[in-house]
């Protein structure tokens, strides 16, 4: 049965309507800006929600005879599936990558230079991408009758590369696999509208046209949201913020992805999504904003792959940080539940973070007793990532020393109590010789003053040399605890008191 194609365009989306609207805006705009401004804003708002994506897809391969033969079928197949999936939110144009791009894309150097400014500039300046929002690169390698495919998106607006989606395919399903990869690699864009602490409201692009017609229970056709569209953002998906700054002339001045920051969706209202921020640092989306700052959120869909995380120190030396413990939690994990221990960084400061069922993993980095950082991460988004955090060496060393001192303190407290108790029993039994021996024994166990002197020496030793201020604070805190415990507990049994008691007993 031939499928009917109900109208898929929103009634609002009529070219003639846009023309009239534009003319009205221009006319009334000339009358007074007060009247025109809200309309412009509304138009801009409406434009965002209804602005479909222009997506250019380049197919790159080694031009084997088999792939040459399949190429047309792939292009047609992918285009058809794209239309079927969503004919309105995106406009996909799939072609063979133009020369010399085809060879450049499949060369080994391409991946190595992926994040270089030069490559990005070349991509942006390529004629074929001038009016596009996104460029999706599809690389196909033939492998003994089967195919290895690699699909990756480059968002031309934010200059952000998406996750690489790698799949294997056979001849029969090559087009489907490629399309499926495109769907995964595609990064819908949102615009960050409002930030209040951790709460963020975003507006989704092209959400207005992301609809399909469906028959309801009465058999009536109605428009519903096309949740199967690549442009649709599901509730469990993650957004990565990007900040664009323009200069006074409106030219793009700076783009910065807010790394180690992600937004997860709490709920939605209309075209908006209400999100919560997961970030490594405080207020990642704070700061002054104005007409020249545009904050966007890219929906990142990481494939099921691991990411190598590398930790380095945030000082001048930037040395790798080995032996740090990495724990992981889901953002929704209740406070009382234990975190999952993933492992320790190796001698290069690296650790592999595997994916799990959660779209985002919150990593906790510990050095000894101290938590160094909280790192939200989407494994698979990148092959490897690097971040810096404090070099904790001095504090860690001090942690070991103070632990030993604390144990020693507790031992001395117990010893003194034991001696005091035995002394009391000796006096009760009128065994003055024994009592005298115990007084002598007590004098050999450090009292509060002796122990504090020792603590002082150790503290001075630990705080000597070049040392970060935060580490100083930690170390001083440890010794403060020790000194307090010394005063509180080690003074409970005083040598002088026992001596007095003994003298008293002797007089009797």
């Amino acid at each position: 049965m031939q499928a009917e194609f109900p109208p898929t365009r929103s009634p609002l989306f009529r070219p003639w309507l846009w023309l009239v609207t534009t003319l009205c805006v221009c006319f009334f705009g000339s009358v007074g800006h007060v009247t025109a401004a809200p309309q412009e804003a509304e138009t801009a708002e409406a434009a965002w929600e209804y602005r479909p994506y222009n997506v250019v897809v380049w197919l790159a391969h080694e031009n084997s005879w088999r792939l040459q033969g399949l190429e047309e079928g792939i292009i047609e197949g992918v285009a058809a599936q794209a239309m079927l999936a969503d004919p309105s939110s995106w406009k996909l144009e799939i072609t063979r990558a133009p020369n010399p791009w085809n060879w450049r894309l499949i060369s080994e150097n391409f991946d190595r230079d992926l994040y270089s400014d030069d490559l990005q500039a070349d991509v942006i300046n390529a004629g074929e991408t001038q009016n596009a929002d996104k460029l999706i690169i599809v690389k196909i390698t033939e492998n003994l009758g089967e195919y290895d495919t690699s699909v990756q998106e480059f968002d031309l607006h934010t200059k952000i590369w998406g996750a690489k989606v790698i799949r294997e395919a056979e001849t029969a399903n090559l087009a489907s696999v490629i399309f499926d990869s495109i769907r995964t690699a595609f990064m819908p864009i949102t615009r960050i509208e409002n930030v209040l602490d951790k709460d963020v409201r975003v507006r989704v692009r092209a959400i207005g046209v992301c609809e399909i017609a469906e028959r309801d229970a009465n058999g009536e056709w109605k428009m519903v949201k096309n949740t199967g569209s690549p442009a649709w953002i599901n509730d469990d998906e993650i957004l990565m913020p990007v900040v664009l700054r323009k200069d006074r002339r409106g030219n793009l001045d700076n783009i910065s992805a807010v790394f180690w920051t992600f937004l997860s969706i709490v709920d939605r209202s209309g075209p908006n999504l209400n999100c919560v921020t997961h970030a490594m640092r405080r207020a990642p989306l704070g700061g002054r904003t104005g007409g020249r700052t545009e904050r966007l959120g890219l929906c990142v869909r990481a494939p099921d792959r691991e990411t190598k995380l590398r930790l380095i120190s945030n000082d001048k030396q930037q040395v790798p940080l080995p032996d740090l413990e990495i724990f992981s939690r889901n953002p929704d994990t209740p406070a009382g539940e234990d975190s999952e221990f993933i492992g320790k960084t190796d001698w290069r400061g690296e650790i592999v973070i595997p994916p799990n069922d959660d779209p985002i993993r919150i990593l906790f980095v510990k050095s000894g007793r101290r938590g160094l950082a909280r790192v939200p991460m989407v494994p698979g988004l990148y092959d490897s990532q690097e971040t810096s955090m404090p070099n904790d060496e001095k504090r860690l060393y001090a942690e070991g020393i103070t632990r030993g001192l604390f144990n020693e303190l507790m031992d001395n407290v117990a010893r003194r109590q034991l001696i005091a108790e035995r002394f009391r029993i000796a006096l009760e039994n009128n065994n003055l010789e024994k009592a005298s021996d115990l007084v002598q024994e007590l004098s050999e166990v450090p009292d509060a003053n002796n122990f504090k002197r020792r603590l002082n020496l150790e503290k001075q030793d630990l705080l000597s040399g070049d040392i970060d201020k935060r580490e100083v604070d930690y170390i001083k805190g440890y010794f403060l605890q020790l000194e307090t415990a010394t005063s509180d507990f080690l003074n409970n049994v005083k040598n002088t008191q026992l001596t007095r008691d003994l003298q008293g007993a002797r007089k009797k």
Partner: protein
Amino acid sequence: MKSIWMALLIGFVTACTVVAFPSSVLAQQEDAAQEQESEGSQTIDLEADAKEFANANDVKEVEIPVIDREPFDRLTFDASNDNWVLDIDPIELEGVSRTASIDPKNRSDRLLFTMELDYPGRLWACPWSSLVKVERYSDLVLGEAEKAMVAKDYATAFRTLLFLSDLSDARGAGKIKQMMDECLYEDGHENLEAGNYGEALTAFEALYERQPRYKVRGAGSLLEKITTCINEFIREKVEAGEYAAARSLLATLRLEYGNKVDEVMQFWELDMKKRALTRLREVGKAVQAGDGMSAHKNVREVIYVMPSLVESVKKFNEIVKQFPFVFVGVTQSAISRDVRRIEDWAARRVGYLVDRWIMEFQKPTDQGGKYIFPGGRIQPIDELGLKFRIQLTQPIPDDVPPILTYELENRLHELATIDSDEYYIPWARLVETIEIEDERSIVFTLRYPHVLPESLLVMPWFSKGDDRKEEAFGFYKPRSRKAEEVIYERNERFPKKDGQQNPLVIERVYGNSAEATDALIRGELDVVDRVYPGDISRLKKDPMITVRPYLIPSVHMLIPNPRNDHMKSDSFRRALHFAINRDLIINEIISGGSQIEGFKVVSGPFPEGTDVSNDLAYAYNRDVIPREHSALLALVLAQQYVTQETNRLENEGVPNPEVEMPKVVLAFPSTETITAACKNMAQQWRAAGVEAELRPLPSGQLVPDDDEWDLLYAEVQMQEPLVDAYRLFGRNGLVKLVDPTIEQALRNLDSSFKWRDISRNLRRVHQQSANNLSILPLWQIVDHYAYRKNVFNVGKDIVSLYQNLDEWRIDGVALPNESNEVSKKRP
């Protein structure tokens, strides 16, 4: 306490004795004024007292030997008093000694006496006329001895008579003496009849000492009896193969009886000689058949039987020449052969024997170990010490695995490659590039200078997947393997050099060190790999045996398993550590009371060294004082853990939590030294309130396969602390839960370019391990090896037994009655 019970029992028996009698003639004298005279019997009813006592105490009557009781005299009353027998305190009569007999018929008036035990402070009286017999204590004792003699309980009889003879005023000393002699004779005779020659001999010899001419009519002289016993006794020993005991007996016989026992002596010397010669014929047959093992076994037994037999010694010397075998006694069989395994003594021993390594440790020096590259040489080629060249000698020496240059280069790469099974982190961290320079040379570059990069390459030549890995490339290879014996022979790839004997090495596994020591003394073994510390002084006294210490001490420690909360607790671990009396165990249990140099309590994982091996002590932190033993403190800390846990549970909302003192499972390799130590530790923990379950591991196993243990006893030998620290605390090391502070100290090792820094950072490892109790250090032991003096070139100051095996030589021994010096060869 014992004396109180004895007193009670005695009192009750006394009371029971009183109860048994229907009437009493006892008169109680309250005071002299109330004394009543009576011609007949007077009764005082003691029955009520006695019954009351018996009922109150519910004590059964027992017959206590007279000599175990307080001295007493016994009165026997006449028929009119129902022949009542009463035990009383020894009678005090003027002019009458305590042992003098008393005839009541010769007495008049009455007897006054006391029974202080049962009736303290009371004086009793009875008419002499009512008494039939008065037996003094000495008479009773004698009577008991006689009873025992009749019952043939000679031991009791002798003991009783001996007691009697010790009574200073005993009568009838002559009779007692005679009875004692008779007792000894009868005892000896009975044992002789029963075939208990040892006991018979003891009795006869004791009698001979007292009465050499003692004789029983028709029974032969005492000396004949003794001779018979000795004969049979020696026969038993000889037939059981206990020749040393038999010879010792003969020697004693000669010493004590001189030429009176010539006949016996000659008989047995002849007998043993016959046996020896018979066995020598077996030896001859074995030699003809080319069976060196049988030949050795038999000739060694012959020498053991008859060390003075010249023929046997000559035969032994011939056999040693024809079949140069060295028998080595070990107590641990080797499951693997790996010189890197710091916890596996046997693996290191065999690793040095049958394998060669890319770098081989020779000895410690004041700058770490000395290593050689057996395939050629290794040397730095730049001033910074970052570049090194490994040059393979061409052709490859015979004693090196046949490896090509590129294969060696691949191997070095493999060790540094993260995905490889052979990945070795310290090497991967250090090396930056590895390149082939030419057909003979490899150059590797380091990321940073290292004091001893060779120490990281004590590695097998081939990787696990390489078939050549299982081949033995060492000087020796296994020829055969049985459960209790492994034979190693020279590897034929190495041509025999002039002057080298390369004896066959037969390793025999013994269940315990004492057996191995005995076998060495007997001559069954030539070498013992590890001597039980308690046997060291015994062996040193043997003129035919040399005992030497190994150069590198082993450090013994307990490794916690953090499977339970209590093992993660500092308080609990400290409690366990304080509870162990380490001085007692090392000085009394392990070294058997002897003072052995190098045996000491330690405070960390590294050896403290001895005077000789102080080069090894560069890692030991002397500022960390060993924890003193304190049972009380252990108790307090263990209880503290329980209290802390209780508080924690209460804070978590658990109502009325009941936390029991945890039990610990101690797993340990089941050698006798370690087993004895662990048993002691378990006892000491029990005294601190912590129950311990002992889990001895199967022979050859050093680490449990499962997780069902809390503490693991490990003995660790670190020949290079710089590298071996990783084997203990590294990612794949023995210690499971390594504190981040120790990891930090290990990291700092990597960036240490000078020995001073290396030493400082290793001492930090020591200090931090003490701070967080990653291990519970116990003691350091210097292991000893022993060998017979006819084995040469075993070596002094060696690290492993087979270190100089290529130079080993076994020679014959000096003939008996000739010079005792063996041929002068370099020891």
